[in-house]
């Protein structure tokens, strides 16, 4: 897939996320986010500085354009972007390190990719939900929301990964 196609796909997923944030009301117990998937779409060998700044910008733009509290997505995106490479080494352990390589589902299979996406999503949502709900909602609610949302968002991310793979 060419660079322009990658960018177009990235923008389409971002617009989809905007639609979900603004118009999809799933109730207080679950939220669906595709931001961890978008963070995965950033080329892997990039320096952590670039990845964190990109994730922060992405989260902030989402906060600005969607109905929510400014800073929540930005915070969660930075939290998920920071350990991206460490998680990659721990969960995927693939040797490939091209300068502009984007980790794809087909490169290391659904299980490994799923675990990687699940871990990033879990960190993202833990940061998001804790910051949003702390001292406002009971711990049980926070835990249930975190677990349900992590599974729902990972499933959404995997669907997108399959779609991205088909187009490439």
């Amino acid at each position, binding site marked *: 897939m060419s660079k322009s196609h990658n960018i177009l796909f990235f923008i389409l997923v971002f617009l989809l996320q905007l639609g979900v944030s*603004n*118009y999809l*009301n*799933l*109730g*207080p117990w679950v939220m669906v986010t595709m931001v961890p998937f978008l963070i995965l779409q950033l080329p892997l060998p990039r*320096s*952590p*500085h670039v990845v*964190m*700044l990109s994730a*922060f910008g992405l*989260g*902030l733009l989402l*906060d*600005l*354009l969607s*109905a*929510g*509290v*400014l*800073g*929540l997505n*930005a*915070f969660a995106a*930075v*939290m998920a972007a*920071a350990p991206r490479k460490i998680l990659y080494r721990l969960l995927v352990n693939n040797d490939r390190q091209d300068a502009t390589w984007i980790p794809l589902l087909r490169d290391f299979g659904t299980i490994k990719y799923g675990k990687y996406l699940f871990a990033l999503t879990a960190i993202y949502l833990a940061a998001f939900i804790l*910051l*949003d*709900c702390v*001292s*406002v*909602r009971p711990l049980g*609610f926070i835990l249930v929301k975190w677990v349900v949302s992590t599974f729902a968002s990972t499933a959404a991310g995997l669907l997108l990964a399959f779609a991205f793979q088909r187009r490439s």
Partner: protein
Amino acid sequence: MNSRSGLLSTLSAFLLFLVLASLSILLVVENGVVQRFRIMGTVRDIQAWGWTRTNSIATYFNFRTENERLVAENLRLQQQLARYQAAERELDSAARYVEPDFSYISAAIIKNTVDRQHNHLVIDRGREEGVEPGLGVVTANGVIGIVGAVGDHYAYVISILGAGQTVSAKLAASGAFGPMTWPGSRPDRMILHEIPVHIQAAEGDTVLTSGYSTIYPPDIPLGSVVSAKVSQGSSQELTIALFEDFRTLHTVYVVRNNHQAEIEELYEQVP
């Protein structure tokens, strides 16, 4: 040399992480929803346009419910008007020229959230229609929130269904009052705090706005008592079932206290 540059890179990455995380938390703590509404003027107008269109479709499918609700409200207002007209006839002519305490601007909701920790609404009335930050937003069945920011034709309302939002409320039967807050779980439940333990609050007792704030008019029905429990041995916490269903809201009233400036001036005179 390599290990030194590697260490520097790791340190600078950690520093950047701290800066970005702190900046994000600062934005959240400052509750930047209102600031964003002000900053994003053009984007907000485009969003408002989109919300208006989608809301029109949703409203179309809710016409019957909304119509029934408006008919009921109209009937109640007519009865109220009749009572006031009867009372007015008994007053002397000078009293008729007394300025009313509150004035109202009707508005349609074009965006409403109920499932977040900090909920909000966007209404189709703004600066040009006389809406200002700080004004209250109510319906006949309850208090909705406070105007947080205004554009020319739209306003951003901070919902009472949000962390840190408080409404001064009282029990209709006893007059005992306290702050009412949203516990964050259900959009149809709030908690009335600081009711003295000697006050008997029965299930079904009506809760009204106290009128002790300059934002909301007194005696707007808010909800009814569902349960009570003693908190810290000295006061009661009452769970209130709200009369207003925030999930089906379509029209609201922005309310202006016509004496607010005078009241604030009095506060300023107090040393």
